[in-house]
Structure formats: C-alpha cells, structure tokens
C-alpha cells in the first residue's frame, strides 16, 4: 500500500517533466522576445558601440538562439541558472535567499485567510440569511474587489502613517535588528530556534501588514467556497441520515458535513496559493519585501535574462509540487480518489 503510493507519486512527478520542459522552452523564447537589450543596459549610458559588443560577447548573447539555448540547457543540467547581470550574484543563490522570504509571507497570508475564511464560511452556511451570512457576503465582496496593492497601501496608510501602530513598511526587519542565523530562512522559525524573542516579535510585526494584505485577497474565494460546499453537504442525504440517527449536532457538523465539504475547499486552497504567489509580486513592492517577486520585477526591467528564467522556472516547479501535494491530500481525505487520475 505504502510502496504503491510512493510509486504513484514518483510517476506523477515524471508526468510533470514534459510540463517543466515546455516551461523552459517558452521562458527562454519569451525573455528574448521582450523589448530591451541586456548588453546596452549593463554597459550603462556612457558606453560606445564597441564596449557594448564586447559585453554582448562576454554574456554569450552574440550567439544564435539555438546555440544560446543549448548552453542554457547544459548549465541547467549542472544546476547552474546563470548569473544575474544586475546583482552580479548567481541566480540560484539569489533565489535561495529570497524564496524563503516570499514563502514565509505567503504562508502567513494563507494562514490568516484560512483561519478567518473557513469558520466564517461554516457559520454562514449553518445560518443562512443571518447577520453572519451577510457579513460573509460583505467580506467576500471586499476581498474580490480590492486589488492587493491598494489594500497594502491602505493598510500602511492607516496602521503606519495615521495610527503609528506598525513599523515602517521596509522589509523583513527594521534596521536595529539583525537577521537570525539561517536555518529554514523563515525568520519567525529561525528566531525561535535562536531563542531570540525580540527578533521574533520584530519580524512578526513587520509581517503582519503584508500578510494581512495577502490574507484579505485570499479570504474571498476560500470563504465563498467553504460556504457553498457546506450548504451543499448540509442538505445531502447522508447528513439527513446522520441527523435521523440522532448524532449530536457537533458530530454532524464536523465529522459528517465538514469533512466532506473540505474537498472543494482544498482545491480552492491550491488555486489561491498560486494566485498568492502572483500577488506577492505587487505586495513585495509595496512593503519593500526582499522576496522573489520584487527580484523578478527588477530583473524584468533590466532584461536580466538569467534571473527571469530562473524565477519562472522556480515558480513552475513550485506549482508542480503544490499540485502534487494537493492531489495527495485529496487521496488522504477522499477514499474514492486514487493517485492514478
């Protein structure tokens, strides 16, 4: 049974290989199709034709596309994503330091969203047309209609500028604090490992506004799906059976209804997580968060081919893993679903 599952997971990962290959090809072509010449950008405004040509040759951009692609593939095979021309650092290192920052923020946002959306959706479904149902509708409408950069700026305006409750939106830690030793790259976890509660508190207060921004964005689809799924399940035959068997209200609600309603919520959660990775790009810009989103924007503006390719590839791999994780969770929750699908 267990070996079977491992085998199936391995097969699912293999099935993802063509997708990843496709992404490698498409990003390679797209980055080069974009306007802007990295050699010109890199050489600076004072450079002449000759120095630009030299730089182009040193970057390997004077070769034909198929040649460049072959070099790129060979480097990829050695785990080398190339060097970022704007920072001078290997792309893989840039991603490794910035990805935890983005992931920590995303997880925090997702956690806030789930912690509010699921109870809200359940309460709304069990009391249709009550005050809490209308509140749920209001929250959903706000969540879908406010763009993240606006929510972010709005929160900064209220809680930093007007009320002074939160620290300046300048990254993961204020200047007076030193980042904890790198273990997971998540400051909240690393500071606890280091036993430094002061840094934990500081990084938490830096994170709360951007995480709320993401949370408000993620709340809407989750709350709506939870409500709809619960409404559907609560009117199902088997919940009627559970009630007719005299099971307690709590058992009916949690064991019978909620466990069935969680399936579509799980699907939505996967989708929302990938939306959040996208929404990160803007939120990181607003809060000067040193994540991969802000890195990608800068790289795109500078026509930093290696950085953009590395970013897209990293995201693609994350989507693949995320979908696999969701599929595995599905099989855990629902015995009717196998991994073969």
């Amino acid at each position, binding site marked *: 049974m267990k070996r079977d599952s491992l085998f199936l997971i391995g097969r699912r990962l293999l099935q993802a290989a063509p997708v990843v290959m496709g992404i490698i090809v498409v990003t390679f072509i797209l980055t080069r199709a974009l306007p802007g010449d990295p050699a010109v950008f890199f050489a600076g405004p004072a450079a002449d034709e000759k120095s630009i040509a030299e730089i182009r040759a040193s970057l390997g951009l004077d070769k034909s596309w198929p040649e460049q692609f072959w070099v790129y593939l060979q480097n990829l095979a050695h785990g080398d994503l190339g060097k970022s021309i704007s920072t001078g650092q290997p792309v893989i290192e840039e991603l490794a330091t910035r990805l935890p920052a983005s992931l920590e923020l995303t997880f925090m946002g997702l956690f806030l969203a789930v912690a509010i959306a699921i109870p809200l959706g359940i309460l709304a479904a069990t009391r249709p047309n009550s005050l809490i149902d209308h509140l749920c509708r209001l929250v959903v409408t706000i969540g879908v209609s406010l763009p993240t950069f606006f929510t972010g700026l709005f929160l900064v305006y209220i809680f930093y500028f007007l009320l002074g409750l939160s620290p300046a939106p300048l990254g993961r830690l204020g200047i007076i604090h030193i980042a904890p030793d790198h273990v997971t790259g998540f400051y909240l976890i690393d500071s606890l490992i280091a036993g430094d509660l002061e840094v934990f508190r500081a990084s938490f207060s830096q994170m709360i506004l951007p995480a709320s921004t993401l949370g408000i964005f993620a709340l809407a689809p989750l709350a709506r799906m939870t409500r709809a799924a619960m409404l559907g399940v609560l009117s*199902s035959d088997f919940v009627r059976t559970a009630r007719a068997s005299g099971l307690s209200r709590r058992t009916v609600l949690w064991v019978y209804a909620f466990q069935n309603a969680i399936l579509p919520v799980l699907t939505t959660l996967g989708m929302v997580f990938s939306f959040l990775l996208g929404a990160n790009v803007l939120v990181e810009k607003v809060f000067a968060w040193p994540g991969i989103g802000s890195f990608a924007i800068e790289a795109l503006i500078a026509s930093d081919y290696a950085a953009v390719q590395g970013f897209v590839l990293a995201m693609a791999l994350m989507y693949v893993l995320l979908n696999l994780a969701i599929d595995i969770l599905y099989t855990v929750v629902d015995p009717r679903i196998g991994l073969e699908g």
Partner: protein
Amino acid sequence: MESRNPLLVVEDLSLEFRTRTGVVKALENVSFQIEKGQTVGVVGESGSGKSVMSYAIMGISDPAARITSGRIVFGGISLFEKSQQELQEMRGRELSMIFQSPRTALNPIRTIGRQLEDVIYRHSSFRGRQIRARALDLLNQVRIPDPEKRYRAYPFELSGGMCQRVMIAIAISSNPWLLIADEPVTGLDVTTQAVIMDLIQDAARERNMGTILITHDLGLAAEYCDKIIVMHSGHVVEVADTEHLFMRPRHPYTAKLIGATPNASRDLAELSSIPGNLPDLRAELPACRYSERCERFARDCLESPLPRLGTGAGHLVACRYPL
C-alpha cells in the same frame, strides 16, 4: 384493533412550508395511529406528503417547515413538548429511519464500520472494544457476508442492497420502538427488494417494533403491511386494514390507485392511469383536494368539513360520496 396504548398517534397534524412563492400547505389534519409491532404502509403518489409526514415524526423537517396544528404522541409522550436535545437523543434510539437510495444516504468518505460505531457510541453505554463487537454483531444480523471485511469498506465499494443492509443495521442498533422506512427498496433490483423487505420484517418481529413503510408500490404494501394509509396531496384519504382496503376500497382515489397497479393476474392493457395532477398546494384549496380529478365529484365536495366516515373495523374514509 385500536388499543388504549398505541405506539404512535398522529392527531390533526398540519404542516406548511413558507417559501418565496407562497405558503405550501403540505399536510392538513393528518390523523392516524400505529400499534406496537404493527406494520403500516403509507401509500400515495409523489408529492402526497408521505416523506414530509415522516420527517415531521422524526423531528428532522426542513427549517422552512412550520407545524401549524396537531400533535404527535409517541409512546405516550407528546413529541412537540420535548426539547431539541431530548428529541435528538430519541432519534436513532427510540425512533429510527431508513431512506431511499442507500448509497447516497451513507457518508461517502467514512467506512461503514465507523458510521455504525458513531451511532452505537451515541446511544449505548458500550465503549472501546464492545462497540466494535456490537457493530459486527449488527452486520451479522442484517446478514452481510464477511462482516469483518465489509467493516472497513466505504459505501462506494458496496452495492445498493448492501448499503441498505448497513442502513438497517444503523437504524436497529438501539432496538428502536418504531422504524420508518421511506421507500427502502426503490431503485433496488427485484430479488434484492424481497431480501431487504424480509430483513426489515424479521427485525420488526424480533423486536415487536412498529414499522411505517412509505412506498408508492401498492403490491409491496399489500404484501408486508397490516394496515394501509392512503395519502393524497397532504390529506389522509383512507385508512384500512390491508385486506379490507384491497377487497373494498371506499375512496375513489384508492380505487384508482389499485386500478393503476400492475399484478400477475392482470394484463398491462387493463391498467388505468389517474387523470389530472396533484393540485398546487400554494393556492386556496377545496375541502377535498381530490375533487378536481374525481369522477364522483359533486358541488358540495368543495365544502368543509369533509366527513370522515368510519365503516367499522377501523376503516376510515374522507369522502362525501364514497364507493
């Protein structure tokens, strides 16, 4: 026939649904009673209020339902005077119910063993290993082959007939006094139908359990029921012992129902259909809701109150001009 200590008395029960398009008068002045150990059939076409009535007895009516008059007395206790908590504890213990389409009536993502355990845990003092032993015993009682193995099965891994056996096991787990079977064999194949019905009948006999069999299949009702209640659009139109009812139906609707039921001695061509449809229950309704479809209609059929004629031996008919 009618004893002093009936198991269940439904008296003058009226129930309506408040919907956006108006008030649906789903049940009106429904009265009947059931003795201990008796099997009573409730027949009538779809929409006649059979299920609504059984949900009202179980106390699991839709939130939009309002009981506007009457009372339900079960084992000498008036159910409407009980608290929600008390009713919840009675369900599954003293009154149980099984449903149509057993495969969707069971939780799809929980093993049948766990579902059985949930109910045993709720209603008995068994704990730990005893619960499992009791659950296996029940699966044996409903004659599920290889219960140890089926115990860990999910509903989708079992046939409809097997799922209905599990439903019966859940329903009889606390030896209830009354079992309501709402179309228990509709959708099952004929051989399975007989097996399931025999199972219900045996379980009822062993426990001296009252049974309400809701069905639109008169043949089934004739075979298994002591007494039959005929319903038409929220009214009880006729109540009689099974034999009486089939020998001598008094209500024109009952006669039509019997005429519309196929059996071995009758050619399909001899079957007649009942003209018209059920009336719109949101509208102002005449005293006799069958009057629009009735061949014996006379003007005073529309006038309240409709007489309820007793013709001896517990035979009741709600008709001004019975057959």
